């Protein structure tokens, strides 16, 4: 079968790109290696219950009436009604550092007020910073590829406050150690502090179902358990796509969400060597199911970002994990219409792929146990101890992420350098998703849309335009 476009990966970005092309009337096939769609945001069954992976919260939760907000723009582009996702805002979240805590919710004023209480006049500086942020669509601008830390220091004098503001942004989207670009910072600051966090009551499945339903309704074809093993090129263009089971398909072009290097390797040795990228950020996450409702752990904590050391370090750990800082997510603690009772707490912290990859089977199983102990003990200081109430614990590691999503190094925000324009050395191959430069669920959706609009729809005479 021949297609106009084959899309590698049924994660958020691949599904979004697929919907756009199907809307334009193309024949599109999304191919996914795994048996479930979603990629980094997916779900699985464990002891008969459905568990979500990925998605703590959706960022960019601007008011539905703000038509220029990214979330509303992308829903329009996908022709999906916002109420289909039934998003409910967070109660509030907390940035907890030694001796000082800042609370924030979807009203930026709370954060400003908290900063005023703990850091006095810095509140005015924070407001100035917020007003000076580059716009969303400038993230790839060459002039904004400089240090976010330096940008923040231009407004915020107290280094502790600067660290506290950077902490949730790095955790929710930092592809590199220590710092990010000003462009990335602006996107994340807007999407987390200015617009805010939300969740669908039914979790990430709702979003995935609405995307896959829309794609199929428009005539798109979605194949699961179809791993692309090779992209057969000739004269610098892809001719055919070969799957792991030996079957082949042809397409005029390919959009891949598998990651830039991961995709180039599929094109053979002459492309596969383009720079390995070892310094990727990965995490462990423990999904802990409790025997009782989670409300006792602070009913107003939706997400807690914590750091317990003198200096907050966003870097690849020197061992399996670094539990000095991390996140605790309470999926039940959002403003749902009727109280949620999943009784799940999710704890995460940075992890180093290399250390996990060196373990043998027994060591790996053992390391998962000790890692949970360490992580839970660290989080206990900030949110309370979940261990006495834990009925079931599932821990996923950088290896789990790599196995189920194919991302090198178990990275969740892609490689350390980005392909902002979505092009590759192959003329009819484009990348979308994390490696195109937009991270998170909303970022990935926007990336799929942008790449489809710019590179594929433009060919048929419709370029993104400014009237």
């Amino acid at each position: 079968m021949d297609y106009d476009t084959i899309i590698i990966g049924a994660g958020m970005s691949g599904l979004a790109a697929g919907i756009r092309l199907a809307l334009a009337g193309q024949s599109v096939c999304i191919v996914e290696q795994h048996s479930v769609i979603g990629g980094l945001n997916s779900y699985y069954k464990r002891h008969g219950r459905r568990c979500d992976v990925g998605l703590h919260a959706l960022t960019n939760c601007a008011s539905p009436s703000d038509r220029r907000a990214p979330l509303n723009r992308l829903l329009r582009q996908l022709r999906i009604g916002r109420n289909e996702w039934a998003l409910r805002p967070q109660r509030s979240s907390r940035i907890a550092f030694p001796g000082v805590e800042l609370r924030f919710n979807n009203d930026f004023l709370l954060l400003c007020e908290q900063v005023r209480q703990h850091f006095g006049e810095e509140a005015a500086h924070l407001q100035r910073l917020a007003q000076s942020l580059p716009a969303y669509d400038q993230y790839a601008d060459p002039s904004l590829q400089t240090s976010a830390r330096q940008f923040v220091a231009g407004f915020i004098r107290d280094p502790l406050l600067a660290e506290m503001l950077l902490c949730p942004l790095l955790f929710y989207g930092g592809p590199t150690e220590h710092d990010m670009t000003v462009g990335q910072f602006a996107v994340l600051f807007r999407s987390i502090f200015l617009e805010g966090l939300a969740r669908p009551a039914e979790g990430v499945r709702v979003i995935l179902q609405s995307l896959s339903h829309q794609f199929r309704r428009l005539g798109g074809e979605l194949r699961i358990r179809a791993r692309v093993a090779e992209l057969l090129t000739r004269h610098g263009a892809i001719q055919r796509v070969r799957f792991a089971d030996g079957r082949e398909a042809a397409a005029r072009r390919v959009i891949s969400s598998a990651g830039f290097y991961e995709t180039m390797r599929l094109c053979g040795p002459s492309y596969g060597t383009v720079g390995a990228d070892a310094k990727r950020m990965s995490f462990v996450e423990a999904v802990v199911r409790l025997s009782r409702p989670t409300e006792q752990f602070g009913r107003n904590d939706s997400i807690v970002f914590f750091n317990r050391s003198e200096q907050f370090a966003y870097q690849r750990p020197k061992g399996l994990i670094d539990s000095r800082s991390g996140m605790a997510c309470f999926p039940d603690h959002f403003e749902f219409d009727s109280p949620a009772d999943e009784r799940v707490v999710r704890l995460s912290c940075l992890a180093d792929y290399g250390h996990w990859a060196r373990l043998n089977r027994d060591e790996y199983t053992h390391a998962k146990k000790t890692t949970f102990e360490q992580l839970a003990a660290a989080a206990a200081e900030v949110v309370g101890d979940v261990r006495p109430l834990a009925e079931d614990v599932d821990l996923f590691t950088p290896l789990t992420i790599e196995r189920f999503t194919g991302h090198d190094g178990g990275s969740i925000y892609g490689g350390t350098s980005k392909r902002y324009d979505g092009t590759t050395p192959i003329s009819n191959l484009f990348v979308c998703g994390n490696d195109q430069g937009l991270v998170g669920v909303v970022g990935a959706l926007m990336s799929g849309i942008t790449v489809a609009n710019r590179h594929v729809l433009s060919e048929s005479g419709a370029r993104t335009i400014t009237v």
Partner: protein
Amino acid sequence: MTVAEIRQAVIDILSDIAPDQDLSALNDEMSFREQLEMDSMDFLDIVMELRKRYRIQIPEEDYPQLASMASTVAYLEPIMKDMPKK
């Protein structure tokens, strides 16, 4: 298609692209951008739908003609006047 039918065809497209907008009070002289808060991505969809529904290819240099309802209808009229109503 008559001018009124062409206008209706554009309204149909707009109501698919921006289902939450009230189009009944649309001011034909005012730009879509201002009135409906449309952005470049939304305009791309007008072009895309015209191509899909009526096989009309609009070259990029003509995009500015799609700024308002009045200018869009004026632009489409010579192209669509001989088309049967859908």
